[in-house]
């Protein structure tokens, strides 16, 4: 794992995307800090981080898109498979390398509240709590982006899908207000989600039987719930949409609350998508 981590860091030091990512993140935070803290004279640094979230949606995929897609395209993944390494070690090594790259601008950004505190009262606890949550938010997005990169050999495709997913997630709470809250609306949406889930299972395991049986089980469950207890489905779709929002949980920290549930949520997302990445690499071996 250490070998992969060191190698990845060395590769990032040679390539443009990591520098671009750091530069853009620092630029976004810089602009935010200028608008909020300097021009508007607001003492809350966490608001700057909230402002930067949308920027993260666009620039993080630049960092994650190549992780596995490039390996497959250059056929260097064959080396990784042939080396005496576990796939989990490869995934973890690459993930830690991405986190390290993300930590570099974060380390610089973490100096800002200290700098501002010299010129007035800054809510340091909220600022650093939010910075920590912001790091976890980024770490979750990196895990998701990495998984998407493992599905394709086209970097552009990986970036496009990642940005779309992050944008949907970013606006999921607002979308929740517009989607149907009726039981039937939820039923239709969940049926579509079940099909998408089955497709993903099929893609990862290569087993049509498993994918179809998973889809059938979920569809059957949904059908039975709709028939016998349709009230349970009412309002479920908007509720779920706001629950899956990565950003909404970060805003809790911005409001000054150190939410442990959010931390658990972020860690679950990270572990889940790292696990999926390992499965996705394992699947490639069967192709």
């Amino acid at each position, binding site marked *: 794992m250490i070998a992969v981590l060191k190698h990845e860091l060395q590769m990032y030091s040679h390539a443009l995307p990591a520098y671009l990512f750091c530069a853009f993140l620092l630029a976004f935070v810089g602009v935010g800090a200028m608008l909020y803290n300097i021009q508007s004279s607001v003492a809350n640094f966490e608001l700057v981080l909230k402002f930067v979230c949308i920027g993260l949606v666009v620039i993080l995929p630049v960092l994650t898109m190549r992780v596995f897609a490039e390996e497959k395209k250059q056929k260097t*993944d064959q080396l990784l498979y042939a080396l*005496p390494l576990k796939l989990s070690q490869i995934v973890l090594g690459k993930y830690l390398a991405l986190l390290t790259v993300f930590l570099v601008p974060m380390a610089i950004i973490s100096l800002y509240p200290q700098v501002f505190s010299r010129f007035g009262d800054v809510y340091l606890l909220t600022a650093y709590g939010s910075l920590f949550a912001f790091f976890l938010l980024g770490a979750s997005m990196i895990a998701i982006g990495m998984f998407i990169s493992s599905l394709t050999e086209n970097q552009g495709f990986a970036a496009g899908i990642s940005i779309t997913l992050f944008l949907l997630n970013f606006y999921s709470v607002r979308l929740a207000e517009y989607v149907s809250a009726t039981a039937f609306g939820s039923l239709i949406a969940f049926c579509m989600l079940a099909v998408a889930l089955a497709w993903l299972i099929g893609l990862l395991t290569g087993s049509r039987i498993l994918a179809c049986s998973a889809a059938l089980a979920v569809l059957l469950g949904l059908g039975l719930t709709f028939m016998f207890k349709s009230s349970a489905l009412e309002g479920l779709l908007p509720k779920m949409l706001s629950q899956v929002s990565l950003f909404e949980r970060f805003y809790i920290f911005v409001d000054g609350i150190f939410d442990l549930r959010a931390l658990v949520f972020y860690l679950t997302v990270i572990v889940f998508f790292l696990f999926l990445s390992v499965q996705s690499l394992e699947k490639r071996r069967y192709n």
Partner: protein
Amino acid sequence: MIVVDHLTKHYGTFAAVNNLSFEIRDGGVYGFLGPNGAGKSTTMNIMTGCLSPTGGTVRIDGHDILKEPEAAKRQVGYLPEHPPLYTSETPLEYLHFVGEAKGIKGAELRRQIDEVIQLTGIGPVRDRLISVLSKGYCQRVGIAQALLGNPEIIILDEPTVGLDPIQIIEIRELIRDLGKAHTVLFSSHILSEVQSICEQVLILSKGTLVAFDAPDKLEKLLTQSSGIRLLTQAAADTVDSILNRVQGLSEWESTACEESCLSVSIKAETQDLHDVSRQLFFAFAESGNAILEMTARRANLEDVFLELTEDAGHTPVEAQDSIPNPKDGESDCEKSEVKTT
């Protein structure tokens, strides 16, 4: 030792590797021969853990590649068809990474890197970016990474493809040297290459093993395809009457060619072609007809390859105008397949 047991790989309904079994003992250079699409790369990818088989097992020194992948992979150095190189690095950085990933550390890693750099002759380019290296050097860097960790088995997938003649000779010499200390298995569809370096040849066709033996032994299997071609100015019926008097000839075929000459392809029943040539010489001399040209031709690996792969329904790309038709040797050859499935 590599033990491949009933290995199968299906892509949908297409069987790329079909119930393949063989054993490779320690030491020596083994050639993996077969036309394009015979399943060479697929088999090699499965043997090195890059691809999962649909069925069957591969054991490397007793370690199953699926159940104990790390122990098995430590014994193997692999160069895939496309050298897996990170083009934004220098060979030195790349070898450093591969060495560390193979669990080699510190001074030992530096020593091994120096050793493989010297062995593969990439010293002059060790600090240049891989992206600017020639194909020959890229191939050498690929071989160097396979050698790191001093694995017992080295698997090279078409290591000479795309190289210029001088580079090909150099890589062949390198493979021959490696065979002294390691077990080398390399694939190729160039027959002369396999013939010149390998001690044992595995011929693959349509995903199945059709022959596994030493190149010269494989050639001996086709004794009936040995023959003589001669050029004479005698008339066809005269040639027939002369040849009827000579012993040890099974059949012949005459074709008229320019300057009223007759080209005769003769199949010999015996392997002693010199004896047949001598008899032919005197027989023609006695009848007062001159032999203008006479060429003895023994079956070579190409004949074996053509016969075995054609038999499996292929039309090999490297067909040649062989005079004797090696078809007659089919039964012999198939009987002597050493370890086929």
